[in-house]
């Protein structure tokens, strides 16, 4: 039997399985390929991705290096090596991998974008911004670049940038679920929990086995629960800081006017409100929701 033909066919199967998110199912086919050719670079790289999914990052990197040694594309391999380090919070090593990847491939938008995200996470904002700008220049419609843009806009709490980034995702992204999730997050951020929940539910129904999506829906349910009505009101009034300042001003005023009784009432109500919002309500919520449904454990 012709080995090359066999490998090509198995590779087609693996390719397909990856495209439908069935990574574990691809493993026997990868093993078939590696049995014929233990240094098949593409197969080694695919296997690295499987291990990445299993959260076995050491093995991921080892396989990426194997793939590299056997001639696999540096952009892909170094990107995954870096990501594997990031997952283990080994940021300097991750940076090193990005730099090596960029050295081999100075015009990689993906590596620039992912590197920018690393810099953002580690607090090097200026560097992050410069890298992201470069990535945008290289390939503004690339999925990784857009994702980095979105994360950036969220971290900077810049609503206008968020809107732009989301818009770009809608136009260029291919993963429907990811799009909807970002829309949900965007509305959540704006305080429009109802809309956020609608998107979150939509995403969850497309992939109900995904615990993160369930958590997203539950997060919206949490924010929308009647127990948190006072908290939402405070949000509408401009947030905790504004309300606190306002109350504080009132207290000072009352003290100046020597209205001690009213001052005491306002003060204790305020303390009670704070306690309710941030201690009583969450505890009650968990008692009620968990009590009702032991399945959401």
């Amino acid at each position, binding site marked *: *039997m012709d080995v090359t033909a066999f490998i*090509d066919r198995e590779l087609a199967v693996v390719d397909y399985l990856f495209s439908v998110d069935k990574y574990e199912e691809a493993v026997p086919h990868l093993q078939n390929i590696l049995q014929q050719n233990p240094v098949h670079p593409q197969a080694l790289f695919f296997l690295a991705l499987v291990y990445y999914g299993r959260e076995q990052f050491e093995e991921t990197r080892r396989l990426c290096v194997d793939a590299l040694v056997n001639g696999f594309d540096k952009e892909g391999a170094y990107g995954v090596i870096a990501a594997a380090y990031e997952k283990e919070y080994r940021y300097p090593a991750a940076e090193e991998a990005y730099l090596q990847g960029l050295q081999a491939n100075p015009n990689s938008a993906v590596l620039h974008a992912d590197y920018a995200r690393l810099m953002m996470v580690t607090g090097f904002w200026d560097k992050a911004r410069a890298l992201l700008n470069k990535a945008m220049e290289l390939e503004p419609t690339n999925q990784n670049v857009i994702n980095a843009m979105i994360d950036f806009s969220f971290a900077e709490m810049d609503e206008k940038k968020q809107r732009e980034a989301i818009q770009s995702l809608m136009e260029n992204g291919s993963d429907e*679920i990811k799009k909807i999730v970002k829309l949900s997050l965007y509305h959540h951020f704006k305080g429009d929990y109802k809309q956020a929940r609608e998107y979150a539910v939509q995403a969850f*129904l497309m992939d109900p086995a995904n615990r993160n999506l369930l958590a997203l829906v539950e997060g919206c349910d949490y924010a929308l629960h009647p127990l948190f009505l006072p908290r939402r009101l405070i949000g509408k009034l401009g947030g905790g800081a504004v309300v606190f300042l306002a109350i504080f001003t009132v207290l000072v005023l009352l003290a100046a006017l020597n209205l001690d009784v009213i001052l005491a009432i306002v003060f204790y109500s305020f303390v009670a409100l704070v306690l309710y919002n941030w201690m009583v309500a969450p505890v009650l919520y968990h008692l009620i929701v968990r009590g009702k449904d032991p399945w959401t454990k």
Partner: protein
Amino acid sequence: MDKIAIFKMMLEKDKENYEAWFLLAEEYRQRDSLADALFAYAKALEKNDPKMREMVIRGLRALTEGGNKQETAEGQADVHGLEPEQAVSLEDITQGSCEDIGAVILPSAEMQLSREDEGLNKDKEESKKAKIRVLEGGKKHNVVSIGDYLPERVTFADVGGLHELKKTIEMKIIKPFQSPGLFSKFQKKSGGGILLYGPPGCGKTFIAQAMAGEVGANFFPVHISEILNPYFGVSEKNLHHIFETARASRPAVLFFDEIDTLGYSRLKSGSDLMRSLVDTLLTEMQSINMNTDKLLVIGATNMPWDVDPALKRPGRFDKMIFVPPPDKEARKRIFQLKLGKRPVAGLVDLEVLAEKTVHYSGADIENIVELAAERVIDSIMETGVERGITMADLLEVIAETKPSTLEWISIVKNYVKYANQSGLYNEVADYIRKYL
């Protein structure tokens, strides 16, 4: 009966039947199917048994010698051109009249095939004459073969318990399949595929086989490795050909196990190949005429939410049937089946075993028996006293394991909680209400 099919069946029942792996390897070797033989030998080696090792090494040695032979034979074919009996025309292949559809087409030939296909309209006569070189053997990694027939018929008698499910299948599927005339008289559509869904390891594949047995049809399991091909457009053609072949041997049941792979939701993947395969599948399914085709399409999946919505619409997989975790009677039967093949000591009370394994899947029960056997082997090695599996062994293992179906059920429970407007998972909701 094809030996390979028999060994595969044995292995499907028990992946750790190393003797079967070895025999399968031997069979592949004799058919010069190098890669398959290697794979099966490697599996047999996992037994970690010196005797097996020796046998495998012997087999491998024979394999390398045989392999050389094959290579030279191939070389000769290149030099001397094609032997008449080795050559098959393109027409033979596309019309499915090629006798050995399990043959392996070489890549060069295959490229030729796709190229010739492109040129088919331009120069029909030329391409008709095009000869394709075919190597014998290699039942698995072929272009046009579809799954092996089952060596034995499985019927509903083999499926324990689950009376309600069996009745549903009887009414909704088997009767319409056997007497489509009655349905057409009343203008009732009897076509469309069936989608079996439910938690993993609860007998979907098994029940699909039994269904084929019940309707007395040929059973064609379809694996994606038989469809996918690196050359543009060939995968779709393979899929089409599978339907054609099934039609040619009607009555037939085409079985797409793990249909969420081939029919993955197009919302969730950007793969062009996947999209066009789903399109092909849709077209093929809609072109089935139940009255004349006698072709039943069954799909099975653990993840019905991953199946493309278009595939669940009328005329496609429009009958969704929930295969629940085995009920008590089914669990008894599964214990009986799985223990039947092994030495058992003393009284084993199936009733008690079934009672203690609520929510356990068929695969879970298989695993319990497996673990109990391991325990016994350990104890024999320790004490040197030979004995069979006892009730106590089984109960201890049950105490240490957990049912695997609850995770799946909790997913559906959440799904139903947030949306079940379409009533898609009503059956599961009923099950949850009844048993949980």
